[in-house]
């Protein structure tokens, strides 16, 4: 049974776990720890987590191109363990995406509009979303507020070939969840993830009842903060093993094409 060994402190075994919302490197605004690709992979090893799909925090918080290059280096160094998102910025939309996606481990785009002082529906993102639409790529959005999901739902209609992931959406406030539930029910190319530092007991089961187990993915935000509480929360939840398998890695595998 998935999760039965969590309280014994044993690593996961026999279930494929792929974290759809992770990062590498650090930001300056608080003390993050163990943020290098090597240290992140060490944690994955210790926990029995198979892989992550990550963007570089440097690409979000500072230099987009530098961060994307560092992401690429990590993807090449850890094939099958670290997959990558190319962060796209509204301030740098001349970037050529083709070379990134020539690398097998690069799987999608990351949009963090809040840090780029933009809105998710900013037209400067359009070329990137058209690219994702054409190639059938996943796009992971930082979607903290309800309005972010409203924008993502509109994009889902415009770009039906892209797979849009509402980062943080599944276990936030009622206002956010209401929009996430509506968006997931309306558009087949929308997914949500579990990424959040604090969520109450029962939140994951509620999310699955509302969204369905096929549309929810395990995401942790590692190493922004630890991943143990979220992966453990999913694994020890009162969901069935079949639902847990989908959320912990099965859905991410399908969405990312791993």
């Amino acid at each position: 049974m998935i999760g039965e060994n969590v309280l014994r402190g044993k690593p996961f075994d026999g279930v494929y776990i792929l974290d759809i919302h992770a990062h590498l490197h650090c930001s300056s605004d608080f003390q993050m720890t163990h943020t290098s690709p090597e240290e992140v992979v060490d944690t994955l090893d210790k926990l029995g987590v198979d892989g992550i799909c990550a963007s570089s925090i440097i690409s979000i918080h500072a230099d987009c191109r530098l961060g994307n290059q560092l992401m690429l280096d990590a993807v090449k160094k850890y094939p099958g363990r670290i997959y990558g998102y190319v962060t796209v910025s509204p301030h740098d939309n001349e970037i050529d995406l083709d070379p990134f996606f020539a690398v097998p481990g690069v799987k999608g785009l990351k949009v963090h509009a809040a840090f780029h002082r933009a809105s998710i529906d900013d037209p400067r993102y359009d070329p990137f979303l058209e690219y994702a639409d054409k190639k059938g790529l996943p796009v992971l959005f930082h979607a903290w507020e309800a309005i972010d999901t409203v924008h993502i739902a509109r994009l889902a209609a415009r770009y039906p070939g892209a797979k849009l992931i509402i980062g943080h959406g599944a276990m936030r406030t009622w206002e956010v969840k209401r929009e996430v539930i509506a968006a997931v029910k309306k558009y087949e190319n929308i997914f949500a993830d579990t990424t959040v530092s604090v969520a109450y007991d029962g939140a994951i089961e509620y999310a699955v009842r509302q969204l369905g187990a096929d549309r929810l993915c395990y995401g942790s935000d590692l190493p922004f903060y630890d991943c143990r509480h979220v992966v453990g929360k999913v694994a020890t939840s009162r969901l069935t093993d079949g639902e847990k398998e989908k959320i912990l890695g099965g859905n991410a595998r399908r969405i990312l094409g791993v």
Partner: protein
Amino acid sequence: MIKFIDANCRVGRGPVQREGAIEDTAALLSLMDDFHVAKALAHHAVAVYADPLLGNELLIKETRGSDRFLPQWAVLPRIWELFPTGAEWLAQMKENGVSSVRMFPAQYGHSLKRYAAGELLDALGECRVPVFIALDQLKDWDALYELCTDYPAVRFVLCSPGYRCLRSLVPILENCGNLFVETSNFMGHNALRDFCKYHGAQRLIFGSGIPEASLAAAASQLCLSEISDEEKQLIAAGNIERLLSEVRL
């Protein structure tokens, strides 16, 4: 298997009911069973959000007869005859089997400075009653430092410090031996391992943060951390048992 005491649990109804959350004591006990939580230090939502004295009274009534809950009172300094003196609080706590307290200075709007809270905190310190206080109840980190240094005899347990806390928390830990940290939302990457390395497992107290936060998350965080089983057991229950055993009411 690790046995837990949850040192950060709230019972009763607050202003927000979350979708799919545990709704009553029976559901809470069932969840505690799932995660091998023998006991929970519980305070009451009515004490936090409405009336401290009524909430404390409800807590005693609602947990009476259960050996799974250790009642934790919300306390505040004497105002006229509206709230007890420190000595009176202690006498009532003894009478009702209460051996730890929480303070809510931001929620209640009172000062923790000596002129306002000294009589109460000195009394609590003298009896070695652990005083729990959440980060969001303090104006800033300097306020925590001042609290710990103004009342060196009091054992303070900082609740829900967050994952962004290290640069502020570590210097206070290094200067204030009377500060303990409750683990809910102490979620930095490998935070428990690092804390044990630099400050010792003896200063960590396991808590869930129920109902806002999750017992499943907190228990997973501890059990999956790269620390020894002995350190896990200290954090899970041993440290709070030690602190409570030293209370002299």
